[in-house]
């Protein structure tokens, strides 16, 4: 029984990792209606920027803040310079550009920082919370950070005029232009915010999995799955999706199918969920009249 609880809690911890990346994916989707495959590499790159700052002697929280700002700027720049020329191109062309971006970021990170793993500091205390061994303080803290991000994101989109403008720009760019929304800058803003969220996710993930250029490749698939399971347009759904995926993966691996097939079975289950609820658990089903 204790092991079972432990597995569930460990699943929540890993799920927190997926949830934070899923939030970045939701962000980019809500503001641009594209799923950015390069999101993971952007987050990884931002985390390396943070690592460089910390290694140069900068204090953790200062480096943390600087990284968020740097990541935001990087996101905006990438959107304005690289994505803008293909904004109106067919979806597949945009996907290829994303893949190109992914490969470039990964390769440059490997070249500059090498592929050897590096440890990344955690702002949370080293002792486990309340002396329990189920979860580390860092993992608990990361989940907290994820919820804070979720709250910020949710309020931003729901309650601020800027958030509304961004959602409008993504859903209906032409009408948005007619009401005076600068669609181009909304998209850039979306990218910047997604990159910033990704950088926070990266800085929370790196202490757990160790920093290396391929850090995000395993996580992105689960984050993608989490975002879709929860509903790609629902930040809350994405976070919940992350936890579900994390717990599911652990329980399946430990009790149902064994670790040799847990990846396959977890993914099959996710697809089954999507077949039953195509818009995800909390997504809005869009009914279009013919």
């Amino acid at each position: 029984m204790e092991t079972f609880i432990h597995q569930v809690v460990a699943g929540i911890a890993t799920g927190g990792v997926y949830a934070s990346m899923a939030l970045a994916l939701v962000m980019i989707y809500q503001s641009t209606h594209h799923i950015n495959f390069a999101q993971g590499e952007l987050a990884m790159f931002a985390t390396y920027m943070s690592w460089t700052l910390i290694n140069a002697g900068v204090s953790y929280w200062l480096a943390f803040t600087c990284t968020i700002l740097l990541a935001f700027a990087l996101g905006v720049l990438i959107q304005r310079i690289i994505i803008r020329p293909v904004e109106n191109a067919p979806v597949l062309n945009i996907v290829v550009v994303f893949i190109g971006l992914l490969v470039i970021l990964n390769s440059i990170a490997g070249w500059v920082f090498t592929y050897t793993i590096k440890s990344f500091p955690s702002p949370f205390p080293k002792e486990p919370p309340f002396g329990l061994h189920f979860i580390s303080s860092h993992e608990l803290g990361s989940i907290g950070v994820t919820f804070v991000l979720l709250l910020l994101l949710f309020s931003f989109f729901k309650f601020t005029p800027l958030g509304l403008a961004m959602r409008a720009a993504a859903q209906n760019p032409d009408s948005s232009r007619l009401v005076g929304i600068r669609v181009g800058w909304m998209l850039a803003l979306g990218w910047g915010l997604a990159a910033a969220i990704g950088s926070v996710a990266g800085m929370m993930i790196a202490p757990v999995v160790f920093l290396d250029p391929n850090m995000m490749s395993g996580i992105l698939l689960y984050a993608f799955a989490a975002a879709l399971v929860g509903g790609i347009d629902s930040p809350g759904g994405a976070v919940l999706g992350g936890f579900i995926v994390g717990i599911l993966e652990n329980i399946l691996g430990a009790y149902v199918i064994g670790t040799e097939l847990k990846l396959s079975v977890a993914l099959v289950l996710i697809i089954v969920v999507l077949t039953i609820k195509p818009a995800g658990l909390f997504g809005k089903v869009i009914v279009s009249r013919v």
Partner: protein
Amino acid sequence: MSSNLSSHEKAIPWIWLILGLLGACALPFFISNYHVFQLSMVLTYAIALVGLNILIGYSGQISLGHGAFLAIGAYTTAILMDKADMPYWMTIPIAAAVCLVVGFLFGLPALRLEGHYLALATFALAVALPQLLKFKHLEFLTGGVQGIVIMKPEAPWETLFGLKLNADRWLYFFTLAVTVVMFVIGWNLIRGRVGRALIAIRDQPIAAASMGIDTPLYKSLAFGVSAMFTGVAGALSAILVAFVAPDSFTVFLSITLMVGMVIGGVTSLPGALYGALFIQFIPNIADQISKAAPWAIYGTMLILFMYTMPTGIAGLFRLIGQKLRPTHP
């Protein structure tokens, strides 16, 4: 992205096709065996890209997991050659049939999903398949993590029309023949009822359904046929490389196929060939340009291609052809 089937596809430049085929047949006698091997691999990629094209270009669905069908085709061939001692040429139609069925079965539930969800489902397939191949209870078949080593076939004759044949050249001709057959099948499919139905479903799904086209059936069929093409490509590549292992079929392979298709030109048969040349040779060229970060060069080229050739290489050639053709009043 609606392709105008009648205008350019009607005017098949037969002369170019025949010249091209003759050139392709003469080529192996002028270049080294290593290059012949590389070109054979290009042909297999071209077949796979035709398959992907049928699914993504003509039928409007998406797949980020076609590497899985390369794997299924390759392993079918490897298992049959290794465990059942079947001659290599006999394994090709079997691999095709297996993939047709698997693709169709996968397409059935998958067509309930659209866009991103279908992308995830296919992506999941690509990720899960290597794990399945390593599964210990299937090890007696798949060789598990060690993979399967195949005996590379020898040429059946010493010379062909007085020119020396060796294993590489023979396999090249074999691959070329299969490629031509597959392209002809693809051509007929696209031009015929199936192709028109697929395009209708892609462009105007609701109108197509109301006109009596069995949308779910055609979509699943598209998946199956697409998988079949890719499976044949996988089978051929297994024979050429003479080795299969789970590590040969990573997620990146599936992504590479998709990239190749877009770069070559969606909804275009010659595009499959251009895309195949791209994915085979550009990484090598990128490596020559920069040893430190070759994939950064590759990524940059991807982006530049998308800026300058949004309709792919085939699209570019089409544009050039149109400009060169005398304008009719």
